[in-house]
């Protein structure tokens, strides 16, 4: 295995903000304190956080947090028991009594132009606008299915991932367009995630890879695992890592894809895949991916939160053995260095990620975490 290094001083690592260039582009080495014979190896500078964790004790609606959304100073948390809004240091909970489609809020998206928040739930799609909640279901609207795993807003269109295909709501005309096995290359219709931009829209389809819609050409394309549905990886970087996709993020013309069997990066021509055996990914079982830019991305797995800066990896979690806060850094050569930290995300099972400047918010199975960037 790789050499291990321990960093003794918290200040030893140079800060890297979420919006800063990847560490590989930095010229100055990070200061390290060697603890082993191989201590002369430089440890990459990776972002450091102090995690503040929210649970029901702090007013969070429920500790099972599926999704998190940052809207300026306001934080939305989609939980199993309502939609939480953290504002001015206090939580407010929206429930079905307020008009929310269902108590379990799986996904969230912000319409940056209007400030409206869209919530995908186990019972429909809700729009929270100026305090009013409008709900769309498969019975009262053209929504394809009430189980809404993903939602993404692009211009006047709301793109939705449901348990029965994808769909799009045109906010100007009110027209719903449904995407399923009858009008796209989709084989399965269990759609877990969606990422919409003015040029491309991507659907993560559980068991059917990735579906791409070209907004200009109005054509569909499909990306599948060249190894088929097996868990073997015979052609690692020749395509999507696996058919069972769970999340995707399209940023700077780069597609980041999460699956239950590893993760992928696609630049439109080449695929690069990440597995635990040859990357810093803590687990191949990945619930969520969120790209920062073309080179950097965050991954939420069942074994912790991971950050990839284009070269190096960092993992943030409670230790799998002791439960104590843990951070590790893996460099390009595969050297893994533990970093002494005093806080960690609330739980290893990470379901949602969003950014607030250089801070990060993390939805986990046992609480919501605010990673406050440490300069």
């Amino acid at each position, binding site marked *: 295995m790789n050499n291990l290094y321990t960093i003794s001083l918290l200040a030893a690592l140079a800060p890297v903000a979420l919006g800063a260039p990847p560490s590989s582009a930095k010229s100055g080495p990070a200061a390290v304190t060697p603890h082993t014979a191989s201590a002369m190896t430089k440890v990459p500078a990776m972002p450091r956080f102090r995690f503040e964790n929210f649970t029901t004790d702090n007013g969070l609606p429920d500790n099972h947090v599926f999704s998190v959304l940052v809207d300026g100073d306001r934080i939305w948390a989609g939980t199993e028991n309502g939609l939480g809004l953290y504002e001015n240091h206090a939580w407010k909970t929206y429930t079905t009594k307020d008009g929310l489609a269902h108590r379990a809020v799986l996904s969230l998206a912000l319409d940056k*132009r*209007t*400030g*409206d928040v869209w919530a995908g739930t186990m019972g429909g799609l809700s*729009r929270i*606008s*100026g*305090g*009013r909640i*409008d709900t769309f279901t*498969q*019975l*009262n*609207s*053209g929504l*394809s*299915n009430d189980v809404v795993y993903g939602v993404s807003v692009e211009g*006047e269109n709301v793109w939705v991932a449901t348990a*029965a295909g994808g769909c799009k709501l045109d*906010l*100007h*005309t*009110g*027209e*719903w*367009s*449904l995407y*399923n096995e*009858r*009008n796209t290359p989709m084989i399965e219709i269990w759609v877990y995630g969606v990422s919409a931009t003015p040029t491309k829209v991507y659907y993560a389809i559980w068991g059917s890879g990735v579906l791409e819609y070209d907004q200009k050409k109005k054509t569909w394309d499909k990306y599948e695992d060249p190894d088929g549905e097996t868990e073997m990886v015979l052609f690692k970087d020749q395509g999507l890592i696996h058919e069972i996709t769970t999340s995707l993020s399209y940023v700077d013309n780069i597609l980041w894809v999460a699956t239950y069997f590893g993760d992928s990066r696609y630049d439109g021509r080449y695929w690069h895949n990440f597995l635990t055996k040859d990357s810093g990914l803590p687990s191949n079982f990945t619930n969520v991916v969120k790209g920062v830019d073309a080179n950097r991305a965050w991954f939420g797995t069942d074994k912790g939160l991971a950050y990839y800066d284009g070269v190096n990896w960092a993992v943030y979690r409670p230790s799998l053995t002791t439960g104590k806060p843990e951070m590790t850094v893996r460099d390009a050569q595969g050297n893994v260095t533990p970093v002494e930290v005093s806080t960690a995300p609330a739980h290893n099972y990470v379901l949602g990620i969003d950014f607030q400047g250089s801070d990060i918010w993390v939805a986990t199975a046992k609480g919501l975490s605010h990673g406050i960037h440490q300069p």
Partner: protein
Amino acid sequence: MSRPGLNSTWASVIAGLGCCVALMPGVCNWAGRTAHAAATPMSGAVLNYASPVEVLFSKDATRLFVLCQQANEVRVLSAADYSVIKSIPVGRVPRGFSLSANGDRIFVANSWDDTLSVIDTGSLEVVATWPVAAEPSNVVEDREGAYLFVANRISNDVAVLDARTGVEEKRLAAGRGASYITPSPDGSRLYVTHVYPNPTPQRTIPESEITVIDTVRAVVADRIPLQGIAHGFHVAFSADGRLGVAAGLYPKNLVPLAHLDHAGAFADTLILFGPDVGKPVEVPLDELERYAVRPFAVAITPDKSRIFVTCEGSEIVTVIDARRLLQWVHAHPGPHVQDLSASANYVVARIGVGHDPRGVALSRDGLRLLVANRLEDTISVIDTRTDRLASTITLAGPRQLTVLRKGERAFYTARYSFQGQIGCANCHIDSTFDGLTWDLEPDGFGRDIVDNRPIEDLKETEPYKWNGGNPNLPTECGPRTEKYFWRAENYDDLTLTDLVTYVRSLPPRPNRWRLPHGELTPAQERGRALFVRSVDKFGKAIPEANRCVYCHSGPKGTSQKSFDVGTKKATDNSGLLDTPQLTNIAITAPYLHDGSAATLEQIWTIFNPEDKHGRTNDLTKDELNDLIEYLRTR
């Protein structure tokens, strides 16, 4: 709804009124106008009424601008002697206008053209016409002159435009029927009111809202819920910004409409909000035998001593002592919206004005209040020191009254109902619908709860009522209305003829889902095929009576026959229901005879389990969506 597609014109409507206009004695032909005019009785030529709906002073207070809805004009008058300076043609059926922040432009919302006209206040010329969303009804520029905010009645939103180019940047979700916009005195907020209620579960208290927009961020900052208020109109603010006043209509549709003699149909209200009152409060304007029917526009004097409210149906301006009103509100915690003894504590005068008074403008010194009398083509000038009518400005136009004009007056006035409490327009807002369900007396109390159907394009859709019980409009508008609604004297024959002629003349508004030349989108085309199909997806013939097109046949989508579509409820006397026309069905929710379907989708996803309302249960979700896309084009 951004699609252009204005296929209907007033001209075409007027062309279809030959049988109606023949009823009227001869009148003169006032030449010089062509569009949006009323037919003369004998010659078939047109009379072009001004129909002023809004007024405003120029920035320097030297000019008066009058928005003339039927003439499709902005008329410019001298504010000193009210002489006409110019008439400026704008788009069809203009509904609202305002000055730019620096006063150099006037923006006019042309509701049937889906455009804004931009008028240069120096040259008094239209310098630009910009497309906007569906049925723009009011427009306001922000204080910085960066954005235009446009209230769209049909698309239920507020569009945000670049104030210099007119390019739409985004749309903000408003309430249903977004229509009027008022800036706060400091310009930091806009307050948007709505003429239709927001969707609520069937037979629950109606609710509208005031949508509050942050003008700097151009986002919805807040929504003030208006419990019980189904229809909101203009808002005014005191100069210090501490008191906001909105005009609202509070329907009592959850009780049988049988108590007009007990003041049981509507409460005409003001909604007060702002620091002066704390939590928003609704206060009544009505008093026994003295009703303030359909409050529309509000003005508050600069010293905050008086509040003036135009009341369309009562044809008055109600004058309120603001100090006494606030004292009363603070001394009497609500709810008191239905308290007919309340208004005597703060209403100090009722000033008779013209037919259907609408918009108001207060002179800068607060001494003159101008009132646009829509169906009289006059502007009433009220002396605010004496609360008396000082003078009346007569706008240029025909002096003769056509059948249509008289019928429209009969439709909007409340004078025919018991103690002058309501008029046709109470339930048919701006000659449309109200989005509510009612329990009407003719069918028995608690029986046959009915959705209020729209009344545009009614010609050749008889019989009327959901049970098809009224064979024609004279019956519908005459004995039925007189006996069960008005509970007062009958119309005389001529008045009933006028009224029926007017109702029959109401044209369909432009359909916003149709493409410009009537072609269908792929989804609409697929939906049309489903609408007319005779074989289901399994190849089985659909019985004729189970085909959409069988009942909803003809150009208006009605066979004019009754059918049982399986929607009979326990409270219904019969399952046989008249087939409603499909004209502009996309905008007339709720649906089914009792309003039990909140959306078009629910007609089939919930209320058609046995395929009695057309064979639809073989359809996939996307096919049902296609069918609905087609219906929206009707």
